[in-house]
């Protein structure tokens, strides 16, 4: 089959932040023998090609052009799948004044999609019929496997994967106060830098960005595991995504600093991540 990612709704800055979401889907489909293309130009392939969209309809022109295209009965048949990465009930995302209309426009889009693939088990079944809804579990992909640095050269003790906000900064300061060398990917670094930082790190820290968040980030955990990183995950998710903790050194928020200190000083800190990747490659 031919899958075409139409990513114009993320152009420009947003494209820099979705690599960890898009590339596993692209290479997972290719591993199954499908043809996958990506584009931002308006020409879209007709049925039987599948146009894949990644949810982000914060702005009216994006949703309006999508609805107009799907409503135009004079056009040849098309097929659209929508990948949803966010918790529908996360107010920080869906009711954020910087992204006005994001939730409302997503709900408007659902009826015009042939299928929906959520990657977090939020309440999508309340809006999308079961026959058009399939959960997409992230897992191991050989094409995205990367190697980190030799143990002796790992000069970063803890790498924060994501942006630094007040919640994460408190942990960062706790780690620094314990004498660890801490760095951060800052949320929007190109992969040539982020992968370099990850390769140098003994530990990759996966923390939720705010207290109300209830789902972990499968794309972040999987990106780190693909590189054989030893991931310290904040333990809070009780959903089906919880299986990802099996491949991390998961612990409660209050224990993160001590856990990182212990692990960073452990002689097998790098080997733990490599072993976790092997389990991840066999189990997912």
């Amino acid at each position: 089959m031919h899958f075409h990612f139409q990513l114009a709704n993320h152009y420009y800055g947003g494209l820099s932040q979705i690599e960890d979401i898009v590339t596993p889907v692209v290479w997972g489909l290719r591993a199954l023998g499908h043809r996958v293309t990506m584009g931002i130009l308006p020409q879209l392939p007709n049925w039987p090609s599948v146009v894949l969209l990644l949810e982000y309809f914060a702005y009216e022109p994006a949703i309006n052009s999508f609805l107009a295209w799907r409503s135009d009965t004079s056009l040849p048949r098309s097929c659209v799948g929508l990948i949803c990465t966010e918790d529908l009930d996360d107010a920080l995302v869906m009711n954020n004044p910087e992204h006005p209309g994001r939730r409302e426009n997503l709900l408007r889009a659902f009826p015009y999609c042939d299928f929906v693939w959520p990657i977090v088990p939020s309440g999508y079944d309340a809006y999308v019929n079961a026959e058009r809804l399939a959960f997409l579990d992230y897992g191991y992909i050989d094409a995205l496997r990367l190697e980190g640095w030799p143990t002796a050269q790992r000069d970063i003790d803890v790498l924060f994967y994501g942006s630094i906000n007040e919640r994460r900064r408190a942990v960062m300061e706790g780690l620094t106060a314990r004498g660890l060398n801490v760095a951060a990917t800052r949320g929007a670094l190109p992969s040539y830098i982020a992968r370099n930082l990850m390769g140098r790190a003994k530990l990759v820290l996966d923390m939720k960005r705010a207290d109300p968040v209830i789902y972990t980030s499968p794309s972040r955990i999987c990106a780190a595991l693909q590189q054989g990183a030893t991931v310290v995950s904040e333990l809070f998710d009780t959903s089906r995504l919880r299986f990802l903790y099996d491949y991390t050194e998961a612990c409660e928020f209050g224990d993160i600093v001590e856990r990182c200190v212990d692990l960073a000083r452990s002689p097998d800190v790098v080997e733990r991540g490599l072993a976790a990747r092997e389990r991840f490659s066999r189990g997912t």
Partner: protein
Amino acid sequence: MPAVAARSRRTAESGRAMRFHFLLTNHFRYGCFRIEDICVPIATGLGELGHIVTYGFDDDVPPWPAVNLLVENFNNPAVVDQMARLKAGPQRYCFGVVGHEDIADAAIFDNPSFPDRRRNLERALTLADFGWTIVPCEYGALAGGERMRFLEFGYARSLRHNASLPRDIDVLFYGELGGRRLPLFNALVGRGLKVEASFGLLPAFFVQDLIDRAKIVADIGRADGLRFLTPTRICAALHRGATVMSEQIDRGPLAKLYRYAAPVTIDDFVETAVAVAQSGRAPEIGQKARELFAVETSMAASLLRAMTLPLFAELAAA
């Protein structure tokens, strides 16, 4: 990206491995995407020589004997001010400036949107221990310019990528479309070709996919009157086995890269692109060009030539 991490394994075996640290504060955040074509080949070449390459921002400035590499665009003077402070302090630091623009190009250095770009570059050169320029322009006329060396971009085996995707894009415009390339883009579309563009800001995972699908990568100058071709663009496409079609504008040392590209002028580009795209020969042309590029050029060897200053002997011994 995998290459950067994998190469570092070899540095453990080399007693004379140096650390090169790209200090990219002045490009954070979206500018970092635009300089990937500059940083990654240099990082890859250094890695193939057994050196360690790291990236950092802000106060992450390792002291001597690490080499801090600053990629030019100092319109905001903060990082140059930081260089000056650190150079004046008690601890020794080493800084290198990577130039990537023609210093005589008024669109870059006399651009009212970046009024301090040239002035701060000149300041940075006086503070830097050395510099590498990927376009061979007249740095020697500037104070500190005598420490600049031409860094010729070439083949790095770690960047070689054998595309497995069907080449279903006829022509890819690599870079911003702008007023000079857009008519060519439209003309090709009018001739029935499938044409795409990287628009200058698409992230690498996206651009690399487009290159792998392209029969032809168009290397057309962004404006009339440019003196230099863009080595980063040609090299990125060649490493992925794409056929490069280059506008012949450069008569200097960089023109050597035309050996690996199909020559065109702005006037015959459309006809030539249509003919090559429809000939079915584009993949073969691209593969042959890459093999020639691999035999005749080397990013690692170029870096060695650019490290002939006594400073590097001192660094290697440190």
